């Protein structure tokens, strides 16, 4: 047996096995991000870098009124916080319902997960047709309920919340699945013991189950924050950032500056700023995961 143990330790095989994946991600993910860092210090003539200018691009982003960085940052925050505020409670309610001892559980679960496998392009397309002010069913619903018609995507007061609803519809399943898995991992004996002690269902949920899955919920907050902060496609298709820039989030601005207006220096620098914000959010994630493993 001693021989066998040494096979798992002294062998060159694992190096051959990991080299392809390491090469692939170094070339496709790390090389480009380093290149982006370099590019962000360059002056560019549209798509061509023409010389080192230090941090000028960064200063420019924070000060140029045309770029209007802080307006986009505000939109990003609205989008992230608004989406989280709806997604997390909604996903939790569904996870709790699906964790009950009910018939057709698998059936309900697959219906509730379905939006997650739909592309952002299709989701945005579906919802822009739902939001259609002239022929859409939502306009009809408002009318039946006695409200005035709303330009869901054309009115700066409603565009952001409309975009958020589409985003929630597409992404809540992810949170729901993780919460459901966490709820299912709670040992039955623990719940039974509390019941024997006289706790009712509500007390069991808030005093026993919720504290047990609170770390999972924290992690979901952070994973979703990353996902939402980097969202481009849904917003691009629903509103292109309008009306009056009310949905012009940072990630979308990065994309449009790069590939609609071909201003690579602005686009790349915005991309690096987004990268830095991602690192900050991820560090929070690692910190929370670390705290979890200390226990």
């Amino acid at each position: 047996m001693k021989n066998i143990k040494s096979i798992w330790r002294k062998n060159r095989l694992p190096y051959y096995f990991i080299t392809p994946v390491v090469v692939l991600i170094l070339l496709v993910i790390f090389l480009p991000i380093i290149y982006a860092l370099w590019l962000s210090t360059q002056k560019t003539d549209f798509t061509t870098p023409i010389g080192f200018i230090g941090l000028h691009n960064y200063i420019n982003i924070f000060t140029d009124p045309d770029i209007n960085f802080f307006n986009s940052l505000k939109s990003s925050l609205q989008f992230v916080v608004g989406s989280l505020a709806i997604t997390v409670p909604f996903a939790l309610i569904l996870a709790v319902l699906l964790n009950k001892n009910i018939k057709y559980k698998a059936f309900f679960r697959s219906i509730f997960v379905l939006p997650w496998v739909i592309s952002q392009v299709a989701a945005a397309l579906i919802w822009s047709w739902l939001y259609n002010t002239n022929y859409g069913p939502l306009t009809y619903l408002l009318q039946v309920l006695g409200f005035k018609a709303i330009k869901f995507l054309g009115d700066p007061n409603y565009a952001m919340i409309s975009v958020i609803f589409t985003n929630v519809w597409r992404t809540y399943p992810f949170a729901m699945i993780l919460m459901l898995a966490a709820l299912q991992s709670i040992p039955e004996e623990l719940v039974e013991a509390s019941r024997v002690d006289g706790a009712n269902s509500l007390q069991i949920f808030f005093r026993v189950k919720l504290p047990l899955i609170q770390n999972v919920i924290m992690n979901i907050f952070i994973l979703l924050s990353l996902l939402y902060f980097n969202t481009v496609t849904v917003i691009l298709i629903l509103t292109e950032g309008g009306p009056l820039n009310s949905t012009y989030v940072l990630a979308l601005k990065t994309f449009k500056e790069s590939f609609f207006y071909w201003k690579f220096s602005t686009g790349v620098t915005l991309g690096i700023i987004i990268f830095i914000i991602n690192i900050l959010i991820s560090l929070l994630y690692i910190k929370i995961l670390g705290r979890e493993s200390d226990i």
Partner: protein
Amino acid sequence: MQQNKLIKYLTYGTLLFLAVSILFPIYWILNTSLKDVSSIFSYPPKFIPESITFKNYLSGFFGSRMLRYFFNSLKVSIAAIILTLIVATHAGYAAARYKFKGKKEVLFLLLSTSMVPGIAILVPLYIISAKLGLYDNHITLILIYSAWQSPQVVWIMKSFFEGIPKDMEESALIDGCSPLGAFYRIALPMAQPGIAASAIIIFVYTWNEFLIAYTLTSSTGQRLLTTGLYFTMTAQGIDWGALTAATIMSLLPITILFFFMQKRFIQGLTSGATKG
């Protein structure tokens, strides 16, 4: 007992109501795709089509470029699944079974990719692929998609291999089987459920990806379904009948696969997201 029954009915009622609400957007475009033009643009909207027509499917999908994009997407997705699986099952196995120098660093490298947002590397990828003459080429998309999915799949496969006892491989090794043989002939076949879970996770990503495909292809012949739908939608005057039919067709493969493999899909999602 009476109260328990009430709670039960309330639970089913809520679930049913929510399920109908969640499905309604998809039902609505299915409904539109089966209507003729006059009925699409009528108000109040008709919630059930009066007469069903498949004309939109002919004009919007089977008789249009969209069919080509459908097969482009299928080609790119399958290639990316194969490449990612080859690369990631090996790495996942090495990480699960072997102790080697630099293992910690490699795993950290893989984890840290999740901090890099796609939007931050689009411009560099565009410039690099143009310089290498790989712009507007499906091979580029396949490589990028594989790199993008590999870390997660390595993680899924790693936790899968860790769940398989290594006795079988060890007794084969004692019998003179090579370490390579132990992987290909024993561990890999046993990891089939993990491979299936990974495959569907990769498929959902590649089939739905838009930004990279938009950025790195330009000719109409190279478009994927997502970019095809986008350009149809941003063209002047949307033909909603044709567009909704094409959208329904784009949802079909993924929905079918999802219903058949949802257990694996959920398994992959939970083990990939928690990275534990």
